[in-house]
């Protein structure tokens, strides 16, 4: 193929470009066609995402756009996750479209596609400016999507909360970035790493400005990840936003935050880890955040009565588990983060899709309205139970392997380094919190299966939602029993992050 500006190697950006164009196609199609055109727009979007995935497989690894855009193993891995999340979110949105968003389907899907483009762009960025742009392109459409029910107070409230928090965290981040730029003289991560390493060798210390800048960056990304103490927005936003949006937020936006974190803190700041790869205070700081997320998320989830809020707290806790993998600051740690997110995609999107199906039918997200559902819709309840149990980390479902990998990578590092008893504590506490997690996940199962009364509802899901549920269940079961391909895929990640300056 002949591309314009051959020196920029634009072909590596093909999936992103295609997705962006497709967003425009979708919105124009919706404007030009009749007002209520059934589900065509949705299918069109699904088709576009599938094509983008195909293109992603075709373009292969390489650098484009100077050094600002790079398609390596990390990027491809995360892009697959983002496309998967978008696909499942769209698939679970058909019911919502039918009921609540009849007249603005095109906008909804276009925003979702743009947000996905932002995430994919972010995964490929090697440089502060493109990281910033990617994050903004990810979140700005999401603000609009959270407030998409224009006359629903909850939705608007969640939109404004998400907006203020999101903009605030971007402002913090960008202010932190400006100091990093001033201190290292570059926005390119690779050059920054070299500069860090030099100052590290010279002074052995970061200096107060550096620490301040890093804290601001960490706080900014912490907001995106909903890590405590920056987590308060998550439950409100998840509860108020349309369910497919909440689902997309929980996986996509979290993945975007994770990849930004990995790029800046694990890869970029590698010079500030001890040379022998033993995690130091920096790792411990991440560890404390992770523990806080796990404890807070799991404990607060117990008392929730709204299933979306419960899933919101659970996703805070899941972010904690994922961050455990970051603590290791090792190749297997990063691989475990990727693997966790991949599995989380299936389980969490599946659970949200099930919630969306139920909400479309009954209009309720209260846990208690699930009572006795197993009698009328045994298959649906079983599927929901599989997702919840996978989130809880019960073998042989894939969620268990994901948790296992994350913790194993930390224990591995702990064995190799001296003075690592805090890591064992962290693993211990982390595993202990999964008992709490099991408690609230099992509570939903209890309500569905053990309740004496028979539910008045019989779940009927539209075809795309069924497909999403099926994808989720198959993913959770299949990768629980045969995770090897994904593990190989995830191990490839670390080869793209260069652990030496």
């Amino acid at each position, binding site marked *: 193929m002949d591309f314009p500006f051959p020196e920029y190697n634009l072909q590596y950006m093909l999936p992103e470009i295609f997705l962006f164009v497709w967003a425009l196609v979708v919105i124009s199609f919706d404007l030009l066609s009749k007002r209520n055109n059934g589900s065509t727009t949705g299918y069109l979007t699904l088709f576009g995402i599938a094509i983008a995935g195909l293109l992603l497989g075709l373009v292969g690894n390489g650098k484009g756009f100077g050094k600002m855009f790079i398609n390596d193993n990390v990027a491809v891995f995360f892009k697959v996750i983002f496309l998967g999340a978008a696909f499942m979110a769209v698939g679970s949105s058909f019911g919502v479209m039918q009921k609540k968003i009849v007249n603005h389907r095109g906008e909804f899907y276009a925003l979702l596609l743009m947000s996905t483009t932002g995430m994919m762009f972010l995964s490929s960025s090697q440089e502060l400016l493109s990281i910033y742009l990617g994050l903004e392109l990810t979140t700005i459409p999401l603000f609009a999507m959270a407030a998409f029910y224009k006359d629903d107070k909850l939705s608007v409230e969640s939109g404004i909360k998400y907006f203020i928090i999101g903009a605030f965290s971007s402002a913090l981040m960008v202010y932190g970035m400006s100091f990093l730029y001033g201190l290292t003289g570059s926005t390119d991560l690779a050059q920054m790493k070299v500069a860090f390493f030099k100052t590290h060798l010279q002074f052995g210390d970061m200096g107060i400005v550096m620490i301040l800048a890093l804290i601001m960056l960490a706080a900014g990304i912490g907001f995106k990840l909903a890590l405590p103490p920056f987590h308060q927005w998550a439950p409100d936003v998840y509860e108020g936003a349309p369910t497919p949006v909440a689902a997309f937020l929980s996986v996509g936006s979290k993945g975007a935050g994770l990849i930004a974190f990995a790029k800046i803190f694990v890869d970029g700041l590698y010079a500030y880890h001890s040379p022998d790869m033993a995690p130091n205070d920096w790792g411990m700081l991440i560890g404390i955040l992770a523990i806080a997320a796990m404890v807070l998320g799991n404990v607060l989830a117990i008392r929730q009565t709204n299933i979306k809020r419960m899933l919101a707290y659970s996703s805070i806790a899941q972010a904690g588990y994922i961050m455990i993998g970051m603590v290791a600051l090792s190749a297997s740690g990063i691989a475990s983060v990727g693997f966790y997110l991949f599995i989380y995609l299936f389980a969490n999107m599946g659970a949200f899709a099930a919630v969306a199906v139920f909400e479309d039918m009954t209009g309720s997200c209260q846990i208690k309205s699930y009572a006795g559902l*197993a*009698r009328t819709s*045994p298959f649906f309840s079983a599927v929901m139970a599989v997702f919840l*149990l996978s989130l809880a980390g*019960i*073998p*042989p479902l894939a969620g*268990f*392997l994901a948790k*296992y*990998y994350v*913790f*194993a990578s930390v*224990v*591995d590092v*702990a*064995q*190799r380094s001296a003075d690592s008893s805090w890591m*064992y504590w962290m*693993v*211990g506490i982390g*595993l*202990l919190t*999964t*008992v709490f997690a*099991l*408690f609230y996940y*099992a509570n939903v199962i*209890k309500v569905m*299966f*053990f309740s004496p009364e028979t539910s008045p509802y019989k779940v009927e899901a539209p075809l795309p939602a069924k497909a999403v549920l099926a994808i989720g269940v198959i993913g959770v079961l299949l990768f629980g029993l*045969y*995770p*090897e391909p994904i*593990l*190989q895929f995830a*191990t490839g990640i670390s080869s793209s992050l260069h652990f030496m300056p």
Partner: protein
Amino acid sequence: MESQILTLVTFFPLVGIVLIMLAPKDRPDTVKGVALLVSFVTMLLSFWLYSMFDKVANGMQFELNVPWITSFGINYHVGIDGISLLMIVLTAILTVLSILASWNSITERVKGYFISMLLLQIGMIGVFCALDLFMFYIFWEVMLIPMYFIIGIWGGARRVYAAIKFVLFTMFGSLLMLVAILYVVSAYHGFANEYSFDILKLATMPIAYKPQLLLFGAFALAFAIKVPLFPFHTWLPDAHVEAPTAGSVILAGVLLKMGTYGFLRICIPMFPQATITYLPYICVLALIAIIYGALVAMVQRDVKSLVAFSSVSHMGFVMLGIFALNLQGVEGAVLQMINHGVSTGALFLLVGMIYERRHTRLISELGGIVKVMPVFATLFMIVTLSSIGLPLTNGFVGEFLILIGTFKANMTYGVIATSGVILSACYMLWMYQRVIFGKITNPENEKLIDLDWREKGILIPLVVLIFWIGIYPKPFLDRIEPAVRSLLTQTNMVREDIGEPAFTVETDGSLSGMTAEDVNLNSKGEVHE
């Protein structure tokens, strides 16, 4: 074929699960038939396994070791020795019987119930086959979910509470186990520079004393909760009382054995030094369990919770036998694991049968049943006596061997444990008297119908086993012995290392020339030698 047979036995119930899923919803009899047939075939397969087992060979048999998750070094590694062989056979038998026992009592959500039962069976047999720590853990957890549903959906009045308590207790234990597994595997990576979960390989790794203590503690806690050892037993009575009959049978018959099996397969071989250190504490806890379980059982008003507490007491015996760490003790413990499965399983079945008729299990509501249900009373008698450990029944052989082992290891423990035997006779017989004999005080008891053919068919195999093991336990002991012997050789070496007197393992291949018949006769006071 040899190496695939274990896989076949483990996963054959999967066929049943698939068939049941496909079966129409309004044909419960088809579902039951499929479940019964599949479990029956599984039982036949396990018998075949038994017949093919080479009883003189050392080490694992029918081994199969293929890579599974290579990135983690996890293999699909199965294999059995005598201990696991007997547990598998027991599991297979009890599953068939419990499916038969739930024939009439399960009326709603039949499909789900039998799927859970078969899934449970996969988990149970899988645990006994697994030689890979990861597989062991997975199967261990796989049992959790079906049991949760069995208790929670088809259980009694407080079933939800019991189910959640069961799950949280077990989960807590297994998470500790997971931490320990993480540590061991990672330590093995440092030792041999490869990731491996192979139980046999891991046991060859020397672990420093201090981590050994912690690791043993983590594994032991997980297993002790399952056993359940005092003071971790509180989930058991709730779970037993609320579970449906078949659930109780499986729970008492097999699930509790997972704990003791874990001690034998993992704790003792992997952490021999820690075993020696912890030994007195565990023995004391086992003794407390024996006495406490018996005393609490005595004051129970519900027959089922009485049997549940008697389980605590009996499992205390098993623990004591294992931690006597000599041939008689451990062999007795393994045999007693089987015995307890058989006789307590039978007790729960009997209680279930009376409950189906009277819809109560309160001792005060029953009484005088012998007049209306003579066959029931007879079978109940046999099972009760077996549970007490009367000579000629299975309970006697096991308890006697355990007591010999305990006396050899520590006189005081032996004396206290013996008093537990007496207590067990007290509460069982007293219960039997109140339930079966006496006047019919409650008019409803007059109308009771005696056992039908199905129920007799459930109980008779167990009664046969009771007498078989009681009179001629040699085939079982022969199969247990090589496994126990290799276990003890290892721990004895450690004992010598740290300067403790090692107990001699007789090398002539018998228990000081005693066969079980001799044991029987001796106890009756007839001088035999």
